[in-house]
């Protein structure tokens, strides 16, 4: 049997108050009593829209939109990044774009039963790092088609293949992986 909740959730969203208790007469005694007062807490909203540029990594997202998985390679050493990177960390050279295979292997994973506020509605979801033949680094993705309630270390090493959103959102989640 699942555990019953023992606490009501704490949320913001208080009550509108039109007056705060305060001494009617101000003198030394009542002013000193203000030190006993509970703190006043108010809500402050902060919302902002950023114009975020993918800069030199932009072709990667254009690739996902077209069902192509791009990586970056140092032209001299051949060191290959499965997550885009404009310059190689070892040589400092500008990398070139290469296509990566649509199939890979799960390197590590987790099932998120909680998450950041933005992703809470999607819980539980599976995060995975994928390794590819011919690439030296990994790619962080969502793994679909596995049961979050049946998490197992056996998932590591599982062959997976890329799937692409038909309606691109121009985010790294335009690609996700499923068991091959």
């Amino acid at each position, binding site marked *: 049997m699942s555990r019953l909740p023992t606490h009501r959730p704490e949320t913001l969203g208080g009550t509108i108050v039109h007056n705060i208790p305060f001494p009617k007469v101000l003198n030394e005694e009542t002013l000193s009593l203000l030190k006993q007062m509970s703190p006043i807490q108010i809500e402050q909203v902060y919302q902002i829209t950023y114009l975020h540029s993918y800069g030199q990594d932009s072709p990667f997202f254009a690739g996902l939109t077209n069902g192509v998985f791009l990586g970056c390679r140092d032209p001299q050493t051949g060191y290959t990044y499965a997550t885009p990177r404009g310059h190689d960390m070892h040589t400092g050279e500008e990398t070139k774009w290469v296509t990566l295979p649509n199939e890979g292997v799960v390197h590590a994973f987790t099932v*998120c039963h909680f998450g950041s506020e933005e992703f*809470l509605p999607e819980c539980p979801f599976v995060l995975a790092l994928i390794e590819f033949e011919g690439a030296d680094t990994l*790619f962080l993705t969502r793994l679909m088609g596995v049961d979050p309630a049946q998490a197992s270390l056996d998932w590591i090493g599982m062959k997976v293949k890329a799937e692409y959103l038909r309606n691109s959102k121009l985010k790294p989640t335009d690609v996700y992986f499923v068991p091959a």
Partner: protein
Amino acid sequence: MPPVVYAVSGGVSKFAKARPDKTFQAIVKEAYDYAIQDIGLTFEQFTELVDGSVASYFSDHFQRQLMSGIMAQDYLGLCPKPGHRVEGGGATGGLCFQEAWKSVASGHMDICVAYGFETMSHVETWKGNEFIALASDVSFDYPVGGFYSGYYAMMVTRHMKEFGTTVEQMAHVSVKNHVNAYYNRYAQKRNRYTVQDIRSAPMVAWPLTRLDICVMSDGAAATILCSEEGLKKLEKAGAKIARPLVKVTGIGRGTDAMRMSDRPHVDYDYFMRHYATGQEQSSDETRAYYRGLWDKGFRYPGVHSFRAGRTAGNMAWKHAGIADPLHELDFVELHDAYTSSEIQTYEDLGLCRYGEGGPFAASGKAFMPGVDYGLNLPEQPLCPVNPSGGLIACGHPVGATGLMQAVFAIWQLQGTIQEHFGDGHLQVKDASRGAIHSHAGTGTYVTVSVLEREA
């Protein structure tokens, strides 16, 4: 002769889930005043003598306030003395401590105060997780499901797969740190748990449960560092500074790529040349052990190990003249944001070899002597890790955390735990040398500092 930097005093506010009773400046002042009062000076006397400060806090988002550092500096009466803010994720406090050390070691200041804080209760927990997750690449990591517990859980699944580390071994870390904190009045969580309690807590990111993970907190900490000259000035003004003195004898830092996916996977020879501890390099048996790991497909650091932590540790051990940290340190306060990361850090710091962190966690070597954990531990305590309770039980008000470790280390080395905690259970007997370890992101910035009691 390298410059001598003394850590003469410290203070910590009681870490709590929420401190709406005070603004962040006033919470910092609690820790700051404690540090001053502990050496018997008045506020005015110390203000006259201190040369400057370093402030640490992680996120402007939590308070929706930029330049909080100067507001604390102002509230503490430190204006117009020099000061600056440092920020480096979870390692912010450790970086702050080392920046204060630099100010003194360089001769720029004789007396420097390092203070840090975070007030994380101003947003709801899951919004706080979102803020923290913004400390991952917002092009490639955050949008996939940004969640630090998820990132650490991925690391530990790899650790488990590579080395056979178990969730029960991880739970030993949680039991240890929570039981230690039971005797620490500054800690946010003072509970006795069993391994079963840890495993049956709600699952957050498989296999990490809520009790494998530190909590968000409001809190502050401060430490006072000084040179020989600074010590003379403080004592001339009437300061009562505990003897034997505590000095900072080792400083180390390391870094790594923000994106876990970018971490290299180096070969055996490269590891032995660049990352192995002196002890590992000199042992035939350990070289053979590592050769065996590589033969089975192990690559370093991958996502299971922190080369920033190893780099920081090696640097600090070399600075302090430590060859065998497990036997030459009397305690370690390390950044246990997760039980799994405490295990990973045992390995990075050379308390055990890579791959042996799980058995080490359950061995008893990192536990306090004389404390009943309700566990059957096969070995005797050797080098207590997180005798204070660590982040998991004390809490993790990010900018304060690394400084909290410094304060607890100073008190351990002064032998004044009983006085400050009101309980002597957590005093490491005859502690003469300890290390503090502060860690950011998925291992992006890591600091290690060694503190030592003068002979």
